[in-house]
């Protein structure tokens, strides 16, 4: 995925490309802040309305009527971050060093102020707080972003792990 802004022959930035670059920059930043467990900076990317959803897998996942791995609305996500910030959240004490890669990014407008971003990801997590092994997480992200006066904000992040229905180790970090 090349996010270089393409210039028109007259030297003007193609507005579509400019929008695309801004959106990609947003999701890359979101991933970097999550990788580095920068909880406050990550939370600052969120809209007041939010669903942070990791389905369990299987057919017809639903955050309300089925069990999910995570189905946090804004308040629960606020609490999840508050627990991480106590410095006593043992499953992230110390926080896992992580790096994730995004690829196959597809961007589609939802409305004139909202955009959907679909992409694949791989995430390598060093489980430094327990087994000291590297855990690979892989799957698909769906973001929904909204343009606010202060810039883009995330109001939906869905994480479909390829092995969501299988046994998973502690997943206390921001995925």
């Amino acid at each position, binding site marked *: 995925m090349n996010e270089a802004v393409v210039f028109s022959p007259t030297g003007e930035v193609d507005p579509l490309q400019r929008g695309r670059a801004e959106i990609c920059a947003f999701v890359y930043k979101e991933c970097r802040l999550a990788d580095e467990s920068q909880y406050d900076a990550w939370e600052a990317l969120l809209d007041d309305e939010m669903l942070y959803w990791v389905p369990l897998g*299987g057919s017809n996942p639903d955050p309300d009527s089925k*069990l999910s791995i995570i189905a946090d609305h804004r308040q629960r996500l606020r609490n999840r971050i508050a627990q991480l910030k106590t410095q006593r959240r*043992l499953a992230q004490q110390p926080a896992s060093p992580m790096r994730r890669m995004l690829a196959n990014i597809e961007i589609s407008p939802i409305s004139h102020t909202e955009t959907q971003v679909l992409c694949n990801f791989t995430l390598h997590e060093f489980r430094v707080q327990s087994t000291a*092994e590297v855990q690979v997480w892989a799957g698909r992200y769906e973001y929904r972003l909204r343009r606010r006066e202060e810039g883009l904000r995330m109001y939906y992040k869905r994480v479909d792990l390829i092995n969501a229905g299988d046994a998973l180790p*502690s997943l206390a970090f921001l995925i």
Partner: protein
Amino acid sequence: MLPDIIMFSVISQTGLHAFGLQGFASFKTGEHLKMSTLEKRTIPTTSGTRAPSYEALIEHDRVHSSLYTSTAIFEDEMDRLFYRGWVFVGHESEIPNPNDYLTRMIGLEPVIMVRTKEGAVSVLSNRCAHRGNLLCPRQSGNARTFVCDYHGWTYSHTGELLSVPYRGGEAVDRSCLSLQKPARTDQCGGFVFVTFNPDSEPLGEYLGAAKGLIESTVSLSPTGRINLTAGWAKLHFQANWKMLPENSTDGYHAPFTHSSFLRTFAPNSQYEMLTQGEDERKSRAIDWGRGHVALDHVPSYERPLQWLGTTEDKVPEYVTAMEESYGPVLARKKLMEGPVHATIFPNLFLGEMNVAIFQPISVDECVLWSTPILLEGVTDSLNHRLIRQSQAAMGPASFLLADDSVISERQQVALEGRGGWLDLSRGLLREKRHEHMIESHISDETTNRGFWTHYLKVMQA
């Protein structure tokens, strides 16, 4: 692994054999082993296939680390606990319609649990009688018969071999080639248990007091029926499976392991009681016998539905439905007392409004399955609340169990070295022994002692 040289007894076809104890001064050999009845010799413990003298490893107030690290002990547990004893498989609500099936593990034995056309629950080994292929590779589905993908052998829901392609070559009677299945399958409150041991006691006898714990759980539904249909979260532990039953009814660790949770969530919640000091806490640890142990929070609840983190005025439909089903007095008692928090030996956990399964994988690997208990005959919003509470408590990204899993994994790392004894003495001086149960302070290791007492009995039987 076990210490280099250790006192062993091995159950073999010829009986009990004991092996030399040297260089391990902390074992009190004379107290545990009746040498006159045992053949004495020394073996290297790296053979990995010998089961030890459990009396030497399990005392009333401590257990030895090799119980968590020995592959020989793990193999012995699969045989004695999971293949000879009664084991929980699943709940009948998971296969509501004829031909519905799911697949699970009993110890290391893959099984199928299926609803027959007649509506009965049948459990079968998930292994083709021909060449041992995993007959049913899916986690769940609906199938009129089970057809092996390898050579097309077809079986009924009760395991009979129905057909074999190319009949001309058949050399033996098909009736000899049924699927293996447990010796007995039985239910309590829709919870399906099996045993591969034809001589085992009836399920009711095995469950003992746990029968009442199951019945009290399902009676929180106005219809007396629960549904385990929301899906199972599976939390992987790089740790020995026995840490799951031990930790699940450990009433001591919460203020420490879960301090981040309590700081974040406890104020004004049903978890507030966990932040109380030792003298304020009213909940009890209970050993019901037969390895079934519980944390009893009933004495801590001061108002109805405290266990659900709500009040009667917020769920009026539920209160009314319960009163209509059980009458106002019994309904109020149930709404006051709430669900149980109990381990049913060896692999079932009734974790308040969650059901969990302890699945061993190897000596240092296991999985905790968990699902919320959905109530029949209540509003969707009440069941939604139960799903959200389960997500908060039990799964890989939960606010509680994710921390427990890391502690268990650290324990496993620490126990793999030279090892030693794990102390279980807490509360011995203050627990009260009654005829059918032992009770003590919530933080006392009465529950863990109850687990190990029964474990020792079964492993020596």
